[in-house]
């Protein structure tokens, strides 16, 4: 038997699905759209009852992909029963969907969920009365506690064994005559679910009228005789109104004692909301929460204890030096230590100097460990995001941020996915799935690389170290400047995207703000586990494969001879094409100039595949080419050894002065171009559109190239004559500001 689970968002559908199916759940995709399709078998059903979780929806209108997917499933796949989950603390709106589901010729069982919460609030519901009203079994349950689930399934199995004819609450309304007449036409044509189709046709539903143009013409004729009042011929509105009217007229009988919020009292949730979305405090609180999340995940001075509680002399590879690391960093270090140890053990067991030893220890392990080392921090980040999501705060974040994001053709909901990209672009891109509007999702995905991710940070740190050592530039400022550059580029390109590649209006923002609920550990863990599994499988396999490819290209020559014994990729495929082809492509950006410029080209190309390997690649070059004196000067691998390479580039360009703009151009290119293959794969499945994916990749590369070009040449101008550099900078800033201002004006005029 096949049961469909249908209900509003936030009705507890996921919780119920997880309780019913346990570990048998399987996540796939609905055909043609990027919406999760979860299915599984009822734990106690002996493998006979399959449950398909439909997307959370408020209605069966033809406008959103979630609704269309649900509707197609219900009509085409003919489930044996629909379990309609309803939030009993929010009955009135939840039953609106029920009135539509009831029109199908499919058995329906209503699951009145959250009865525990309703009881706590002091409300009471009469399931028998609801059963009488709608003529279908209604069972009180609590998905969270596990109450009533056996009875629910028992009644669903029984209901599935019988036939059921659709029934409509519009039976007694103004449209009843028209609907019945149209229904007869469908019956004559032997179309299943005639009532459902008839109602949709009368509603002027786009999908239905397109499929049955002849019937639609007939309906238009019949509809002329119906008095529509304030709706002035709008049957879509008339029918929606009739459904709500029916519900509110009958609600009193079902709700023996309404929940207090239904009568306008301030509930606990309302009181929490007063603080969290407060006019003045809302934004500071929000920033504090975000800061806290990032601090606990990435901070190296936990709770800022360093300096006063933790002595300077405190030094531990894992727990931090001179300060305590945050939990995220500590488990990151633990994982890192474990994987390096494992890597050493394995490579020492393999014969030295053989290509397969190199493949396993440098190629495969390098890649897999790079991903694994990110897992702990991603885990901590996901943990917080799951808690924020399950508690209902995430919707408030969208509420608070919407105004700021709207100008960019995004809504407040885009904030979370984008902010996640500071951690890793892969979960960030995956999270764009929560954006309803396709254009918004595309715009957000296009912007993802500009938010400097965790794998890029070592690049900034290494270069900042060199700049600090040789030019006295403030290291933190260098790192910070990359983050700022990314954000500025994101803002400017959001405007450009909206005007060019991804047109279309800003998506509407009519969103439920669900009640706050204390997140339950069990739910959070399930949530966390699903997300993590998704991430590890996706990022892990692709990064591992990509690093093996890089290893191959940098270890073998065009005649497939192994040239990687000394780690020098100069004679390899990658080295040769960098030296003789791509070097000229990147030549205008500065960093490819000079005798050793091709090394940066190799690093850049590997960076397109995985940013983790950029510093390692530079390290290899530095190791074989670095100035001996420089290498002993400090201890940081990135710092000193890289310095040698940078100087050799600078040497060719007439001093380090020019090397600095060239290096910033290099960093900018790495920041803005294709983030990594794992992100590309994620973008491919979220965009679900090959042409868009190519556009995205081209957009990233072109943006990176253009910005790096400007950085190098303007920077070089500064070293020649300050006033010239300043004048050009001012001109560019003015041009961008002008373009943005022009766009702003235009959107403003449009409303």
């Amino acid at each position, binding site marked *: 038997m096949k049961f469909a689970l249908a209900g509003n968002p936030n009705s507890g559908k996921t919780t119920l699905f997880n309780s019913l199916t346990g570990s048998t759940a399987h996540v796939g995709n609905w055909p043609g759209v990027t919406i999760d399709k979860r299915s599984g078998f009822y734990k106690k059903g002996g493998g006979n009852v399959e449950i398909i979780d439909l997307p959370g929806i408020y209605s069966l209108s033809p406008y959103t992909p979630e609704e269309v997917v649900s509707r197609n499933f219900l009509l085409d796949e003919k489930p044996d029963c629909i379990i309609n989950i309803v939030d009993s*603390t929010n009955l009135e709106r939840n039953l*609106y969907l029920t009135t539509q589901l009831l029109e199908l010729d499919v058995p329906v069982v209503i699951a009145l969920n959250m009865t525990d919460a309703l009881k706590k609030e002091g409300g009471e519901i009469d399931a028998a009365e609801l059963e009488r009203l709608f003529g279908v079994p209604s069972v009180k349950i609590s998905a969270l506690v596990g109450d009533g689930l056996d009875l629910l399934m028992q009644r669903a199995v029984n209901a599935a064994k019988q036939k059921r004819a659709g029934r409509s609450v519009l039976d007694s309304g103004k449209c009843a005559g028209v609907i019945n007449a149209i229904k007869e036409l469908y019956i004559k044509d032997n179309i299943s679910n005639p009532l459902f189709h008839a109602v949709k046709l009368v509603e002027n539903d786009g999908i239905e009228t397109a499929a049955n143009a002849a019937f639609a013409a007939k309906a238009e004729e019949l509809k002329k005789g119906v008095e529509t009042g304030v709706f002035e011929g709008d049957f879509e509105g008339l029918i929606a109104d009739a459904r709500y009217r029916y519900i509110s007229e009958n609600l009193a009988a079902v709700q023996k004692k309404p929940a207090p919020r239904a009568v306008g009292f301030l509930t606990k949730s309302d009181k929490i909301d007063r603080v969290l979305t407060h006019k003045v405090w809302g*934004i500071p609180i929000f920033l504090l929460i975000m800061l806290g999340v990032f601090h606990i995940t990435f901070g190296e001075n936990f709770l800022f204890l360093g300096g006063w509680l933790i002595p300077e002399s405190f030094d531990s590879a894992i727990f931090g030096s001179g300060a305590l690391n945050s939990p995220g960093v500590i488990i990151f270090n633990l994982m890192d230590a474990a994987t390096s140890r494992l890597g050493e053990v394995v490579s020492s067991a393999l014969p030295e100097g053989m290509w397969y030893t190199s493949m396993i220890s440098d190629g495969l392990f390098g890649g897999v460990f790079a991903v694994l080392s990110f897992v702990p921090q991603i885990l901590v980040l996901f943990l917080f995001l799951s808690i924020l999501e399950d508690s209902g705060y995430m919707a408030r974040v969208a509420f608070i941020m919407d*105004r700021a994001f709207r100008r960019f053709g995004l809504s407040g909901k885009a904030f979370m996915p984008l902010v996640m990209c500071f951690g890793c672009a892969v979960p960030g891109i995956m999270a764009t799935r929560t954006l309803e509007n396709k254009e918004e999702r595309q715009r957000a995905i296009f912007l993802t690389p500009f938010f400097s991710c965790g794998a890029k940070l070592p690049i900034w740190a290494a270069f900042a170290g060199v700049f600090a050592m040789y030019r006295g530039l403030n290291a933190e400022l260098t790192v910070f400047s990359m983050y700022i550059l990314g954000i500025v580029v994101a803002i400017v390109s959001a405007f450009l995207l909206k005007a060019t590649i991804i047109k279309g209006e800003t998506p509407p923002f009519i969103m*439920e703000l669900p009640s706050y609920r204390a997140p339950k550990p069990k739910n959070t863990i399930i949530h966390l586990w699903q997300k993590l599994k998704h991430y590890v499988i996706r990022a892990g396999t692709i990064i591992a494969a990509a690093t093996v490819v890089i290893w191959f290209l940098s270890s073998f020559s065009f005649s497939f001879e192994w040239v990687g014994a000394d780690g020098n990729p100069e004679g390899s495929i990658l080295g040769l094409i960098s030296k003789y082809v791509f070097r000229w492509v990147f030549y205008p950006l500065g960093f490819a100039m000079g005798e050793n410029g091709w090394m940066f080209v190799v690093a850049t190309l590997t960076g397109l595949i995985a940013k983790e390997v950029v510093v390692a690649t530079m390290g290899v070059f530095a190791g074989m080419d670095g100035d001996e004196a420089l290498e002993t000067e400090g201890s940081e691998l990135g710092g000193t050894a890289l310095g040698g390479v940078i100087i050799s580039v600078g040497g060719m360009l007439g001093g380090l002065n020019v090397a600095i703009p060239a290096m910033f151009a290099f960093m900018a290119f790495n920041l803005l171009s294709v983030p990594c293959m794992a992100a590309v794969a994620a973008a491919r499945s979220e965009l679900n559109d090959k042409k868009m994916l190519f556009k995205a990749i081209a957009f990233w590369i072109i943006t990176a190239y253009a910005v790096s070009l400007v950085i190098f040449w303007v920077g070089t101008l500064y070293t020649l004559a300050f006033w010239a550099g300043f004048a050009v900078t001012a001109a560019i800033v003015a041009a961008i500001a002008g373009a943005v201002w022009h766009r702003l004006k235009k959107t403003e005029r449009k409303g």
Partner: protein
Amino acid sequence: MQKKLNDFIPDEKGTVKNVNAEGKIRRRLFDMGVTPGAEITMRKTAPLGDPIEITLRGYELSLRKSEAETVVLEVTK
């Protein structure tokens, strides 16, 4: 007295008279329960001045002022 939803001040109540939005947004408003006769309480404005939060049919809904502008209500309190 009739008034548009975007002009409501916090805690003001009204009954929906008419929804003038079109297409997708109109349907979305109806689906969310903003239909003629629905009672709406204005809750608050977001910290940046937009969107707004309202209570109707026992739950909280947020919508932008530009969307709220299409909803005409009879003020009740």
